[in-house]
């Protein structure tokens, strides 16, 4: 009896191992079904999801104009003080004073990419882009000013 149990144990054990090995062998001979991506060699063809939250940017149009009014809603919505908005007063041609942004300071190293600032913005002035290669040699390079130099607010945005 003991010998019979022993032999059947060995038989079952080996059979279960071979069953697993068959799967491994299948993929060894069907290398087309393997899905590993060869980053960074595939950089040219790599396409990230369009909603991927990688970095906050402020889109500018061809006239170097953005839609940010400097309302600081995004600054208040941010949970960790990533955004700092410095405002100034522009003088319009009619001689009136108008609030505008001087600098939109964004600290990528502190950003948790939670998207709360984007949903808080009433004028769609900022958005997320799928950049993910953020490594730099100096930490100070991660503090960015998002409004481009010389840019101004688009006409008609209040």
């Amino acid at each position, binding site marked *: 009896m003991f010998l019979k149990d022993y032999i059947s144990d060995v038989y*079952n054990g080996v059979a*279960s191992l071979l069953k*697993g090995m068959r*799967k491994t062998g299948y993929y060894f001979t069907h290398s087309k079904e393997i899905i590993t991506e060869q980053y960074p060699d595939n950089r040219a063809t790599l396409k990230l999801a369009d*909603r991927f*939250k990688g970095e906050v940017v402020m889109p500018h149009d061809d006239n170097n104009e953005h839609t940010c009014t400097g309302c600081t809603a995004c600054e208040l919505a941010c949970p960790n003080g990533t955004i700092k908005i410095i405002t100034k007063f522009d003088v319009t041609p009619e001689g009136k004073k108008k609030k505008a942004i001087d600098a939109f300071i964004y600290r990528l190293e502190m950003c*948790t990419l939670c*998207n709360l600032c984007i949903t808080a913005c009433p004028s769609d002035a900022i958005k*997320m882009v799928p950049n993910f290669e953020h490594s730099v040699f100096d930490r100070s390079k991660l503090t960015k000013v998002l409004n481009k130099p010389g840019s101004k607010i688009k006409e008609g945005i209040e």
Partner: protein
Amino acid sequence: MYNQTEIIKDTTDLGPDGELVINMGPQHPATHGVLHLVVTLNGETIKKIEPHLGYIHRSIEKMCERLSYRQFIYVTSRMDYLSSHINNTACALLIEKGMQIEVPERAKVVRTILNELTRIASHELWIGAMAMDLGAFTPFFYAFREREMITDIMEDTCGARLTMNYIVPGGLMYDIHPNFQTKVKAFVKQFKEKVTEYEDLVTGNIIFQSRTKGVGVLTAEDAISYGCSGPVARASGVSCDMRKIAPYDAYDRVEFDEVIETAGDSFARYIVRVKEMNQSIRIIEQLIDNIPEGEFVGKTKNVLKLNKGEFYQRVETARGEFGVFIVSEGGTTPYRIKFRSPGFSNLSVLNHIAKGSKIGDLMATMGTLDLVIPDIDR
């Protein structure tokens, strides 16, 4: 409790009766993070295990107390990062309950689908990591192949792979991606075909079976008295599925079975998780074709203020019962917030079930508890 010098002393000294104290972790491949176990051994037999926490303590509860009710949700993704959707859902549900916010049907259904996808992704990762702890490297890649499809779906719809922050009080942050339904269906199809591969590779494997069967047995009484929940308790025959006991979102309208095993050993915990994945697929199949049209987020005030009082909401994460408790003074931030994490109670049972077994079995016992350290150590 040991202090730092005692730990160092203990590791170099043999105790009075030949006891050896070894430190497992905080950097150990099988502790998945920074768990530190001080294991007292007699030869190869475990006499005592003391988990030491604190290496990844970020004071999340205190941090949440200065964040507004919209902001604090993203922090909870950083606790149990493998069930971040489910944690976010718990917080959103609590705020909706406290403020009587109406959640659109569409949001409820999408939340349920995403929660189940998260559960599958978490169990997939666990199976891979668990098999790797026991020395099998291949299943890891198979598990990650299917998990990758889920992270792709998450990336398309939520914009992130791990810390989504897609769920807001009142519904969802933005609508689902147009390809959401096709991608989820493709995943369901592939998963059903490929799940047999795990059976071949892991479940039926004689080495895996003999290393997990009868190892780390937890009785139903102990599971209850230690406060275990999730697959750990269900493998011991305790019915504790929050989706059944206190249904939230769309769980009250779907059919699924609560998976219960009675053996209570490591193998039973494995089986519960594999079967739970199939149940999750069942839930997704019932909902994916019936996502109602309409709004994805309900009407909410700009500034959220909870009424004065105490609020509690519990959900079923991939690891067990997760609870959020908020004491509100009526302001815009919580007065006090407390999270009940499933991992903490599940870890507390480790000493009890591993005592007396061999050190080699500790890996199997600990692995099947499915510990995520940032969840235990907030």
